[in-house]
């Protein structure tokens, strides 16, 4: 008779673990965003922001995963030198894209909603970012690696990784790894 609670506990265990994962991921995201916002609210210019935010993002965002997914299936045909080259270029591009969204002097605030657990080791955290009087739906996709890291950002339904993949896929089909690296170099070289 007294076994019932015990059985219930065993049955509920996966749910509890999932809840814990979601909480952990959300906590990691919160501390990242807090750090970024503190920097953003202090920054005097966009380039200063990009520089100071870089170290935070490099710790909290898995740029390697993002690059791999943005390149897609072609990734396996990259040599390891090409992979690290592409990864470092893509990192620069993403950080620039991200910091361009801030205007010095305007502060953003973030409302967190209930996180979901689409698969084990993965948590999606939907948020609403309130910025310059408008509300934006931003979902952060977190993955468990060495700690929870951001693997994609979905703004108003638009995934950053999917967006770049649609572009890099075309480069890869045209000229393989070299073409991908060349087009990344061109985008990074273009003044923002």
């Amino acid at each position: 008779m007294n076994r019932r609670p015990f059985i219930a506990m065993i049955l509920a265990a996966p749910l509890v673990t999932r809840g814990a994962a979601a909480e952990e991921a959300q906590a990691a995201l919160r501390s990242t965003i807090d750090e970024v916002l503190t920097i953003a609210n202090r920054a005097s210019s966009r380039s200063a922001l990009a520089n100071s935010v870089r170290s935070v993002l490099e710790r909290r965002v898995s740029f390697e995963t993002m690059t791999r997914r943005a390149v897609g299936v072609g990734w396996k045909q990259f040599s390891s030198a090409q992979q690290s080259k592409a990864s470092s270029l893509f990192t620069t591009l993403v950080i620039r894209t991200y910091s361009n969204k801030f205007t010095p002097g305007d502060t953003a605030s973030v409302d967190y909603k209930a996180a979901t657990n689409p698969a084990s080791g993965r948590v999606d955290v939907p948020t609403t970012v309130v910025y310059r009087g408008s509300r934006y739906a931003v979902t952060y996709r977190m993955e468990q690696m060495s700690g929870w890291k951001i693997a994609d950002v979905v703004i108003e339904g638009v995934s950053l990784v999917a967006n770049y993949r649609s572009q890099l896929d075309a480069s890869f089909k045209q000229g393989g790894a070299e073409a991908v690296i060349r087009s990344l170099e061109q985008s990074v070289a273009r003044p923002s």
Partner: protein
Amino acid sequence: MKLHRLPPILALVLVSCATPKKTTPATTSSGSAAGAAKAPASGGTDALDDYGDTVVVSDPLEPLNRATFAFNDKFYKWVMTPISKTYTTLFPKPVRKSIDNAYENVKFPVRFVNSGLQGKFGRAGKEAQKFGVNTVAGVGGLFKVSDKIDSLKDVPAEDTGQTLATWGMGHGPYVVVPLMGPMTVREGIGSAGDYFLNPINWGFAFRGDADDWAWIPPAGNTIRSMPGQLDLYKATTENAIDPYTAVRSTYIQNRNSSAAE
């Protein structure tokens, strides 16, 4: 800004004629069907297709679309940007915000009717509450009081394109419309529906006298939405590898996600 709120003149961003509603976050199991074809399970590279599946839309007119895209780019830069700059110089930010709020508030029938047509009656009710609160407490819609009310602040805005998607209509071919920007056949029909549901167009659309006052509200709407649309265009293209593909992917993803929610 909510991309789906943008009026047709430059509705910027969204995939796939066959699948109107793409279920976004693929789980490990459902992602593998598409993933298996592209990424053989060689273990090392994890489910590449789980996130960021390439968003596909039929683009049979791509060469023509690219030419129109290049033309539009110049038009935005040389014609729209100066108009937009003049507007933002003449009107300070809080005033522009209130003008935006008022136009969005008046657009209430678009959201209300389309929520209803999709059977989302709870959402239609919330739209009615929003309209009431913003019109009365927000002085004719100038202040978006509903943003301070938890149940009303994040009601997804429905439009005719989303209704057609919910009814099972696919995107059809992707078309870059001169001056207006990205569109698909479905979204074009949707924009026409939105046009007739939006009271600001009623004077012009149903009386049709261009010498009249009737052209003022729609013209005002076009101008007031320019700064936001140009910002969005810039944000989408400035760090792109290929701006044309970036805008197409952004447009289709955004429209699909709006239709799904």
